[in-house]
């Protein structure tokens, strides 16, 4: 469902994403890990056709995010980092607007919005103005927006940031549930989360992939916990250089 080949993104002299390649098959839930500034958000923005890549190729749902961006956008539910929302709108009003924008037919809109309201646990705030909502609710409104047209691919940038432990568990279970039928790429800092919901992990550091494997394999090979794996891989990338772990990841 998602194919990335030799993708590179430069902002002036800064190389944000440096020649990365990976594949995500249909129905996979993949965790995208990496320190801040590693290039996770950039990759996600390229895949959702928000920004173009400097070079390299990507295909999402069989379409090119640059040349066939409308088809890509129709197939992807995207939750950006920090969850930007129209603050002056009410929750259900916002979701209706997004459903209309995403081409949900008029006769289905009511049902779809009701479904995501229930699914994301925001039924009780549907009539509230978004500006007055807590961070946890806003995060779930963003998630509801990503789900409203029932897309086959979900790209979620830090979906559990700012949530309390109960909400984290709720969202985590939801993503696991969603992963039954959909392809999910999610980025996060919370390693225990990845361990629980993502069978496969891609770790990137300084714009390069330093490891790509199942969480189990990584733990067996590199360290007892995923945290050790993360620290080791992203640290060596800083100190020693990228070549060795990068090759290891790509074998």
């Amino acid at each position, binding site marked *: 469902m998602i194919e990335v080949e030799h993708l590179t993104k430069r902002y002036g002299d800064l190389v944000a994403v440096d020649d990365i390649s990976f594949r995500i098959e249909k129905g996979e839930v993949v965790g995208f890990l990496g320190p801040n500034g590693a290039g996770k958000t950039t990759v996600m923005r390229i895949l959702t056709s928000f920004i173009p890549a400097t070079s390299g190729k990507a295909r999402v749902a069989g379409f090119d995010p640059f040349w066939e961006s409308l088809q890509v956008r129709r197939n992807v539910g995207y939750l*950006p980092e920090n969850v*930007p929302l129209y603050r002056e709108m009410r929750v259900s009003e916002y979701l209706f607007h997004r459903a209309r924008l995403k081409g949900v037919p008029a006769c289905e809109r009511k049902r779809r919005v009701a479904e995501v309201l229930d699914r994301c646990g925001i039924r009780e705030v549907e009539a509230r103005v978004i500006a007055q909502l807590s961070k946890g609710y806003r995060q779930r409104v963003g998630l509801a927006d990503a789900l409203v047209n029932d897309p086959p691919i979900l790209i979620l940038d830090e979906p559990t940031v700012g949530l309390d432990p109960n909400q984290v568990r709720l969202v985590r279970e939801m993503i696991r549930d969603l992963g039954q039928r959909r392809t999910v790429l999610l980025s996060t800092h919370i390693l225990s989360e990845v361990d629980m919901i993502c069978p496969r992990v891609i770790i990137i550091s300084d714009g390069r992939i330093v490891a790509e494997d199942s969480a189990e394999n990584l733990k067996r090979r590199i360290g007892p916990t995923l945290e050790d794996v993360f620290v080791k891989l992203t640290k060596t990338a800083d100190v020693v250089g990228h070549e060795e772990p990068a090759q290891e990841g790509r074998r």
Partner: protein
Amino acid sequence: MKNVSALTRRELVAYFLSPTAYVVLMVIVLLTGYIYFDFLSARREALILPVVRVTAFMLMLVAPLLTMRLFADEFQSGTIETLMTAPVTTVEVVLSKYLAALFFLLVVLVPPILYAGILYWASTRSGGAGPDAGPILAGYLGLYLLGAYFLAIGLVASSWVRSQISAAVVTVVILLMLQIPSFVIPEDAVDPLSRAIRYISYTNHFYDVFDKGILDTRHIVYFLTTSMFCVFLTTVVVTVRRWR
């Protein structure tokens, strides 16, 4: 283009939910109402021309307030990311925002239009023939074209800068600068360059034309083409800002 109605609807909701809209409407009512009343009661002149002229002046301050939010806010709050990752094209987004602003401009012009209505009502009631409709209609058409042109410039500014406040300031500065050529270049200048520069200035195309009741296609074309060019420019700017 099927998304334009959904997007325009959302922009209009945003207009009517923000205090700016009501402040703008109130200021328009107060100032144009005062001018109208002053001419009518103190000078005993039943004229619409002063109302048209003061509204034209006020549009220069009102338009930036109506356009500053359009794109600057999307970029500032990051909602441009959810907007442009939905299946909509940049052209649809830009057009929708402009259409919503144009619609709101209609609302802004309601009070000045009411004054003409009152004049007509008062005149016919006392047995008169009513005011001359030609100049009034031309004046209001001119006001709308002028407003549409100001909004188009505000739209570009809003897509260009980082914050709403700077969008408003940049718009006012551009609108003031666009007046300069009509002051420094005499009306009877003959060399093509001076004439071309003078042509850019919108004041020549509004004052002593529309407000005098003249409908001249040259000036209508001026407002329509420059507005369309600004809409096009906005599309380019929004695309480029995303691509950098």
